[in-house]
């Protein structure tokens, strides 16, 4: 499984993190290509169910990133998001979900370098952890599990 390449989905806010990622791009910063960025107007819009859907549809890791506190384009979206994440993270941990596969961060529009470093760090850590099989194998029978193990070896 040494050629496993993780799929990372990033839910980012348009005004800060997306612009930061843009800056990383225009500065020709090289960083891991495993991330798929989904743009939201604000982290306050990010529904916790979207994270579950991402994992269910094959993501191995998730990044959620937005404006720093007090810098939200809509004033308080990131404050609401922060409360939601604190709650959701605690719920997932209680249910036994691997919360280390979800990374939260504040990345501003000027922090292109921070974005690149964050993506690199998360990709490395997920690559070490391996593919996320806990949800996709929930419904399978034992036979399917053996088959899955075989084809992803």
């Amino acid at each position, binding site marked *: 499984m040494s050629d496993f390449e993780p799929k990372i989905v990033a839910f980012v806010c348009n005004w800060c993190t997306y612009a930061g990622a843009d800056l990383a791009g225009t500065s020709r910063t090289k960083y891991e290509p495993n991330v798929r960025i989904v743009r939201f107007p604000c982290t306050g819009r990010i529904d916790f169910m979207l994270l579950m859907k991402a994992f269910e549809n094959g993501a191995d890791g998730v990044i959620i990133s937005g404006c720093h506190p007090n810098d939200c384009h809509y004033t*308080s979206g990131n404050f*609401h998001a922060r*409360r939601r994440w604190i*709650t959701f*993270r605690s719920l997932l941990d209680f*249910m*036994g979900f691997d919360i280390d596969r979800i990374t*939260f961060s*504040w990345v501003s529009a000027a922090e292109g370098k921070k974005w690149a470093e964050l993506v690199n760090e998360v990709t490395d850590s997920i690559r070490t952890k391996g593919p996320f099989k806990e949800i996709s194998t929930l419904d399978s029978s034992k036979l399917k599990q053996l088959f899955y193990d075989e084809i992803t070896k």
Partner: protein
Amino acid sequence: MIGFKNALTNQPVPCFIEDASQAELIVYTPECKNNLAVYLHKPEVKQSKKIGIFGNMATLRSIIQLTSENQFWDIEKTILTIDANDEVLVFANMEEVETYVQANFPDISEEDLKLLAHLDSLTRDERWKYWTEQFTACIKCYACRAVCPMCYCSQCTVECNQPQWIRVSSKTTGNMEWHTMRAMHLAGRCVNCGECGRTCPAGIPIHLLTTKMNQDLFKEFGTRPGFSTKGEYALNTFKTDDKEGFIK
């Protein structure tokens, strides 16, 4: 008047009486654990305009929480309870209900605390195994949703099929999604009445999810549902200096 009456089984059941002559039917024993506040959303009940309700502590807390969510603007209600000395108390207004509840605020039951402590002692993998095994038994009957006084949305997100947030079938993945969503929608609003866990036909202790959420939210944000009619909801308020240790 919504209260309890004796039924053929040993467990008292909810009943609705419309005439003073039927008042003898009403009983109140320690077995009357059901949360009757859920009936206050029923259109047939709301038609009456003047409603009396006989509440145990869970019902009183639900009524306080629902008042803080402004769900009783169209009905007039009289609330009664029986206190520790078997005296009937009639509350004149919500302030009296609040005072009574705050004076006798219940703790989480021993049984639940033990189960929570046990789950806390497990490793992450063991917890995942526990909950996924439990959710395999879930049949998506949504009894937990039907019995909860806080689930009053006329159009539940589960009914939305564009996009389909929660699968209709009872595959374990979809069950896990449903219970996660339910716990999040109730976090900070649940009054720990335990009805959902009691009502589940598959015996899944789903009330533990919301109980744990309430404990955490109280620890992090100091919010306590069913305590005050002016209580704030943890997830639509914020402090600019909310603390967390995991955002990079």
